[in-house]
Structure formats: C-alpha cells, structure tokens
C-alpha cells in the first residue's frame, strides 16, 4: 500500500529532506557508536535526492523557456511569469505546509501527553484509588481463568510460560550482573509475552531512568498493576521530580506515605522534592520532623543543613574587570544581598560601582537594583530587576541617572521538550569612557526558542531587537540567529551557529555600527562536576565573521573566537566561590565593540556566603 500521492504534496518534500539529512544522522550515529544502517544507503539516497533537486531545477528552467516561447507565439495566452516562478512558489508552499504539518503533530503530541497526566493526578486521589481497585478486581477474573486453564494446560501454553520464565530469569541475572542492555532486552521480551508482569515493568523502568518519559510511563504502569505497593508511588514521585513536576511528585509521595506511614524513603524523597521545588521552608519542616524521631540519621541531618543554607539570607561580594584591544579597562566592585526565602520566591538587592578608564579619561558608574526571582511553576522561572544607574559628572556635564532593569521568563518542558526564553532589559553600556560619557543605553527585547527535533538534537532560534540611544542619536540593532545543537552527552553539547546582526544607521557615539554583521561558528558547551562538587563550565565558539559598513559591500571573512568559562568551588556549606572569564575575538557581536578587529576579555570573582 502507498498512502497519499507519491511524489506530490508534502510527502515528496518530507522524504527529500529526510534523504538530505541522512549524512548528518549517519555521522552522528557513528560518532555516538550506535547501530547505523551504513554509508551505502546514505550515499544512494542522498544521490537520489540530489538528482531530484537537479531535475526539479531543470524542469523549472525548461518551463520558463516554454512559457517565454508561448508568449512569443500566443502573446495573449498564459499569465504566468516566464521564469522559475511556478516551481519556486510550489517549493515554498510545499516547505511551508510541511513545516505546518510537522509542527502540528508535535503540538498535538504535547497536548495529548499532558491530558492523561491531568486525569491521573492525585487531586482525584479517591477516584484514582477506586479505579485502581477496580482494575485489581478486573484482574482477578483473568487470574482465576488462567488458573483454571492452567489446570488443563496445553503444552503450547506451558511453552509460552516457560518462555516468559526463561526471559525473566535471564533478565534478572543480567540486571544483577549490571548488563543493562541485555537486561532491558530480556525484560522487554517478558513484557511482550506477558504485559501484566509488574516485576519486569518496574525493572525496565529502572533501566530507562535516562529516558524520563519512558521511565515515568512504566512506573505509572507499575502503580496501576501494583496499586498497594508504596515503592511504586515513590518511584513515580521521584521520576516526576526529576522532570520538574514537583506538585504531582509530592502527591505521589503523599500516596506512598498513606500506604507506608513513616517510611524513610518516602519522607526523605518528599523532602528532597520540596527542596527541588524551592519550598525550602516546607522541606526544613519535613526533615526536622524526621530527625525529631530519628536523631541519629546523619544523611538527613546533612540535607537539613543544606536546606537551611539554601533558605538563609546570603551576601555575595564581587570584584571584576575587563580590558579591550583599544586600551579601555573597567574595574567593578559590588555585591548582592539576598533575603531569607522559604518559598519559591527570592528577593535581593544588588549594588556596584564601576570605574571605566582608557589612559586619558576615567569615569565612574554606580548601579543599584532590586531583584526578585520566582518559580511559579516548576517549568517556569521568572527573574526581575529594577533600579537605576548613576553616571558621574565629567568635564562640566552633571551626573545623570538612568533607569535600568530586566525582566526574564524562562520556560522549559520538564520532559526535555521545547524551551522558551523571553527577555526585556535596559542597561547602560560601560565598556569604554566614550560610551559612558555619551550615555549609550541599550533597550532590548528578545526571545530564544529551542525545539528538540530528535533525541539529543535541538534547533534554537534567537531573535533580538534593541534601541541604542545616546546623546547624539538613536540606532536600532536587530539580531537573528539559528543554532543546531547536538547533546553528545548530558553535559556536552556541540552546535553550529549562524548569527546575523544589522544596525539601522552609523553612529558616532563610540560603538561600531556596521550595516550588517554575519558570524558562522561551531560551538561547544561542556559542564563538568568533580566528586567535591566543583563545577567547571566552558562555552567555546570558533568560526568566522564578516561585516559590511553602512553603504558598503560586505568585507572579507576573518576569524571569530569566543570563550566563556565558569568555575564554582564550594568552600564550605553555604559558601561558594565563583570565577567567570569571558573572552571575545569576534567583538562585532557586542554593542561595545569599536571596530571590526575589537578584542575583549573580562573576569569576575564572587563569593556567596549564606548567613546563619
């Protein structure tokens, strides 16, 4: 059977793109050491796709010739543009429709996936229990029938059972031996033959912890099969907490505690979930309740101390500075004070003084902002800052005050789905005395949308628009970027990035404002954590950039390098030292750049101390 219209419609486009993507996928599979279908098929299908594209182009060209010829013979006949217009329009419609259909399917998938979750939340605890009990009763009948049938068992049926038992034995042996792959295959074989096997369901879920969606589905299945086992509820709770669905996780832990009151794993698991949900006040109470009855539990005591540190007020003194290729340097001293927080919202205040100099001129800025950070839902993080920046008086000009602030909302699908990052901000640009003197202020709104298209493969779209105001002029800067990122491991990501930045006009305020900047980079993000919880993060980018001055042609490509690194060292409970280094040899990407050859490096050292 061939469904649809082969060759026509969006099917043709879908398979064309599928074919063109095969080399990328093959390379990725080889890189990860996974089973692949081989280069022969890839080369053959890519060649077919290439030939189709060439054929379509030739058709368009011939069509254009035919239309032109028909115009000469029949001037009144035909109304189409004599070019590749028809194929081009067909191509555009086809690609657009395909994107629409594929996006629709993904949205439908997200919608469908959420619906059952709502239906099974333990808000309807009583109903769910009733359903579970009903399901258990409904299972009695097959068991009774099974027992009766077993008494008169046919050899074939016995063979089936033996098959299941054999798979189960092999699966348990492999699980005990630590052979996760073999165990998963055998447990899957057990479930294929006996989908009611709760033991295999639980074990398979454990083996699929790296795939939270599948693990959660299997643990839920286990709860349906074994509704009286509190460990099933704990497993679902833990899986939900790992995906950021803290409310549901807590309800599952409550269920587990109803079945097994006082069970340590349920109490501690619930408290850990409260910590993850930033409900540290409730977590401290839960830990405290457990320690009141089990005062010798050292692990819980440590976790309680950590929770108290997280909820305590904190101060963070910091010192930082930067230097660029034009001889501009900054020195920044400041600090942040955070108020005590027992819930998901944290308030604080930040103050800093920055001195900017270039060997001739020195000027200072002071900044004071109020900060609030909240997580209204587990998937949503909102950060807000509001305050003002005061620029010192210089050469007869008085001091000025500029309102500054930022509002940022980040949403990420807890199950590793799409993510959205929206940000609006207003701040003074302080990389050089000239920029400060000219009161250059950036007011920007932007969005980053991330869409996972396959396991580990993500597409990121970045869009920003900013107004750059100064004493002389107002300029507009637009940034568009596309990123294809592949998560090689959970802590390593490689990406290919294209950035395009445009300024609406030149500026004499002290920053480089070419008509167009294009940057193509390969990037990698690496995050490592040692046994002593020291975190290293590196964001590297290597590529090329080119710029076009206002009214001029695009210049040559030159190198573009960037590096951001973070080292966070926990010194003691509640004390963490952070060192950040930011270097750029693709300065045109930044508003503070002065030329296309601008280079920049900055660093910052801070110490967060939780107050007792």
């Amino acid at each position, binding site marked *: 059977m*061939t469904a649809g219209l*082969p060759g*026509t419609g969006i099917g043709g486009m879908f398979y064309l793109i599928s074919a063109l993507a095969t080399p990328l996928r093959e390379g990725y599979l080889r890189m990860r050491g996974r089973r692949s279908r081989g280069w022969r098929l890839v080369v053959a299908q890519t060649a077919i796709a290439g030939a189709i594209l060439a054929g379509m182009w030739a058709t368009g060209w011939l069509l254009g010739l035919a239309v032109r010829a028909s115009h000469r013979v029949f001037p009144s006949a035909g109304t189409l543009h004599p070019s590749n217009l028809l194929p081009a329009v067909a191509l555009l419609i086809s690609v657009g429709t395909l994107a629409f259909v594929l996006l629709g399917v993904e949205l439908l998938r997200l919608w469908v996936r959420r619906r059952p979750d709502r239906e099974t939340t333990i808000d309807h605890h009583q109903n769910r229990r009733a359903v579970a009990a009903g399901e258990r009763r409904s299972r009695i009948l097959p068991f009774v029938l099974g027992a009766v049938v077993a008494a008169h068992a046919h050899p074939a049926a016995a063979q089936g059972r033996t098959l299941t038992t054999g798979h189960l034995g092999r699966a348990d042996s492999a699980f005990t031996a630590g052979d996760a792959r073999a165990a998963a295959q055998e447990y899957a074989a057990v479930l294929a033959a006996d989908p009611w096997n709760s033991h295999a369901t639980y074990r398979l879920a454990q083996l699929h912890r790296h795939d939270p969606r599948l693990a959660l589905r299997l643990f839920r299945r286990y709860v349906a099969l074994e509704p009286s086992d509190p460990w099933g509820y704990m497993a679902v709770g833990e899986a939900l907490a790992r995906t950021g669905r803290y409310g549901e996780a807590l309800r599952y832990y409550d269920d587990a505690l109803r079945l097994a009151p006082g069970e340590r794993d349920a109490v501690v698991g619930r408290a850990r979930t409260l910590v993850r949900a930033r409900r540290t006040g409730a977590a401290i109470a839960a830990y405290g309740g457990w320690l009141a009855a089990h005062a010798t539990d050292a692990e819980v005591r440590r976790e309680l101390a950590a929770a108290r540190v997280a909820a305590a007020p904190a101060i963070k003194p910091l010192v930082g500075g930067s230097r660029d290729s034009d001889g501009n340097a900054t020195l920044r001293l400041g600090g942040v004070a955070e108020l005590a927080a027992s819930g998901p919202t944290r308030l604080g205040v930040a103050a800093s003084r920055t001195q900017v100099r270039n060997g001739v001129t020195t000027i200072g800025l002071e900044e004071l902002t109020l900060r609030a950070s909240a997580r209204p839902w587990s998937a949503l993080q909102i950060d807000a800052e509001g305050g003002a920046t005061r620029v010192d008086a210089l050469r007869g000009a008085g001091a000025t005050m500029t309102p500054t602030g930022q509002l940022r909302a980040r949403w990420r699908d807890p199950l590793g789905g799409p993510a959205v990052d929206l940000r609006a901000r207003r701040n003074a640009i302080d990389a050089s005395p000239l920029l400060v003197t000219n009161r250059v202020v950036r007011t920007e709104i932007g969005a980053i949308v991330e869409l996972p298209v396959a396991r580990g493969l993500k597409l990121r779209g970045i869009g920003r628009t900013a107004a750059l105001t100064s004493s002389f002029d107002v300029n507009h800067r637009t940034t568009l970027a596309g990123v294809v990122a592949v998560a090689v491991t959970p802590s390593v990501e490689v990406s290919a990035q294209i950035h395009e930045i445009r300024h609406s006009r030149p500026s004499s305020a002290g920053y480089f404002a070419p008509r167009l900047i294009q940057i193509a980079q390969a990037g990698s993000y690496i995050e490592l954590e040692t046994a002593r919880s020291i975190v290293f993060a590196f964001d590297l980018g290597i590529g090329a950039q080119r710029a076009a001055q206002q009214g001029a042609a695009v210049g040559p490509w030159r190198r573009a390098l960037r590096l951001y690194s973070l080292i966070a060292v926990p010194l003691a409970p509640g004390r963490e030292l952070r060192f950040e280094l930011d270097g750029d040899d693709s300065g045109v990407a930044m508003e503070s750049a002065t030329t296309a050859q601008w280079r920049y490096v900055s660093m910052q050292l801070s110490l967060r101390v939780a107050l007792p």
Partner: protein
Amino acid sequence: MFSSAWRLKHRWSRDRTAPRAPLAELGPLLRPVAGIDVTVIIPAYNEAASVADTIKSLQAQTTPPRAIIVVDDCSTDGTRDVAQALGVMVVRPPTNTGSKAGAQNFGLRYVRTPLTVAIDADTVLAPDALERLLPAFRHPTVAAACGFVLPQRVRSIWERGRYIEYLFAFTYYKQLQEYYGKPLISSGCFSMYRTDILGAHNGWSNRTLAEDVDLTWSLYQAGHEVRFVPEAVCYPIEPSTLTLMGKQLRRWSHGFVQNVKLHWRGLLAVPYLRSAVAVAFWDATIAAAVYLVLLPILALMLASPWVLIGYVIDAPAVLVPVLVGAARRREIRRAIASIPAFFVLRTVNAVFFLRAVCAELLLGRSLRVYEKGH
C-alpha cells in the same frame, strides 16, 4: 513501550492465548523436514489459479521453510486440491472467516516455529527472498521484516501504474523509512514475523481493512522494530482492470484511514513514524483535494492552462527514483513506457483516498466488508 492504557485494555480484553491446534492435526508438520525454522501461512480464497505458483516459489527457495500451511478459507474453486497436490499442509476453517486476517489467524494456530511468514496466495517470491529476509531477525528487538514488492505482471495500464508506484516507493520512500528505523508498513503480501510476538498481539486483527498496517503500527507502539530488506523481492499479481483496482484501492484507502483513527494517539509516541503518517495522511486528504479540485478551478479562474502543469510538475521527483530502481533491475525501457500510467493511477488513487476520508471521518460510514480484489 506502552502506548496507552486503552490499547492495553483493548488488546488484553481479547483472548490472549488463542487455542493451539491439537498436535494430532498437524500431520505432515510433525515429520522432520529439512529447512529453516520458518512456517509460511498462505491465506487463500478461490486462488486455484495462482496458489500453485506461490507454493512452488516457496519450495524452490534457497533456504526452504520448515512448513507451508495453506488456509483454504472455504474456497469453491478447488484451491484445496491444487495445494494438496503440491504436498503442503492445507487447513480449512469450519466457515469462511470473512477476511484475510481471519484466515491468517486460523493458520497461526498451527505454527510451531519461531518465525512465521505471511504471504498472499497470488504472490511469488524471488528464489532467495527468505534467505535474504532472515538476517533481519538477528537483532532481538526486530519483530517483523518485509521485502521489496514488484508486480508479477506489467501489461495493463493499472499494472504499469502500480509498477512505477512500487519502483518509486520501494526505491526511495521505503528505503528512507528503513534508514530512520520506521518502515511505514510491513507489507501484507510478504512479511516475516516472530511467532511469539505475533501471538502476543493476537495475530492479525480484522478491526480494520488493512491488517498489515494495524499490525505494523501495533508492533511499533509495543517497542518492537520492523525492518525493510530491499534484497528480498516478492511479486504479487496486481489488479489488471479498473474494477479490480477500484476494489483494492477502496480497501486500502479505507484501511489506512481506519488505522489512523485507531492508532493516532499511540503513533504520536513513535518518532519519525508520526511525521511520516501525518505527511501521508495530509497528502491523502488535502493534497488529493488540491489535486482533484483546486488545480482545475485555478486553471479556469486564471484562464491559464499552465496551471495544469501542476499535475506533472513533480515528474522529475518521480522519475529519478524510478529510473534508479529500474536500472538496478535492467528494466529502464519498461519503466519509461509505464511512466504515463502512473499519473493516471495517481489520479484514481486520489479519488479513492478522498472518498475514504469523507466516508470514514466526515460521514461516519466505515467500510467493514472485506471485498477481495487482488
């Protein structure tokens, strides 16, 4: 692993352990026979004219199957005699099962080998087809495998159209589906399955008119793999007249829509397959409507015959894979001569799919009668 509670309930509410045939009934199967651990089931209803070729092609395999079971679904044309004369086991249900799936399930009761092949009674295999298909089952997660399909006869316009359609689909679309690990359908005319997994799924379901689609998508949702092995070639007899083609397209189009209705929720959890099915469904509905209705209207409204080029503008997209497939088989001339027939068949195909979508989804008139064409 589990697509939805509904599917599980639905599956389990049925008889999970279909009664096995008493050993005494097995007759020739119990005799030690040289061959691979494969049993072939051939459902047949009035297939006396073609079943002999099917059986002979199986007996001539480079690795012959251990058993061949012809399920004579109460034929009236002597199918049973033809099959018995060739020395294979013939079983006959008490009454006509009413569908291919019913006959196949009846045959499944007699299978004692770890692998089962389902083949239509009008299909012959290339001599090495079974041998080529077997390696796909080296990996334990593979539950089914299918081969390359080409019409046995390429004479009428409909057979020629189908020839191009198959050359195109199996050289291009299906190879990509295989590369991404999700062949859309394990073809009903020739596929191999793991018997235990087939049994766990209660064999072939007759809840839709496309039992092969139903089974393939059920396997994916249960976490199994399906493979397409292009080297394993089979040759079914395709409809040679519009009447027969109409019956087949009606069954296929309704079956596809019924399966989309039945499985859509579970398919959403299967990467790539969900996109492939969505695209196929879109092309079967919206693209078919554009093809049949919008293009002529646009041509009239714009008073431009150039718009009608839309009917064949994708000819290069069709021609390239077809010629690649034909070149491998050294059938270039036959393929070029058959190309125009493809565009005729595609138009007819669009009509049937559009009708099926309207009937199944808009009017609620689900086709349930299995009408045999080819």
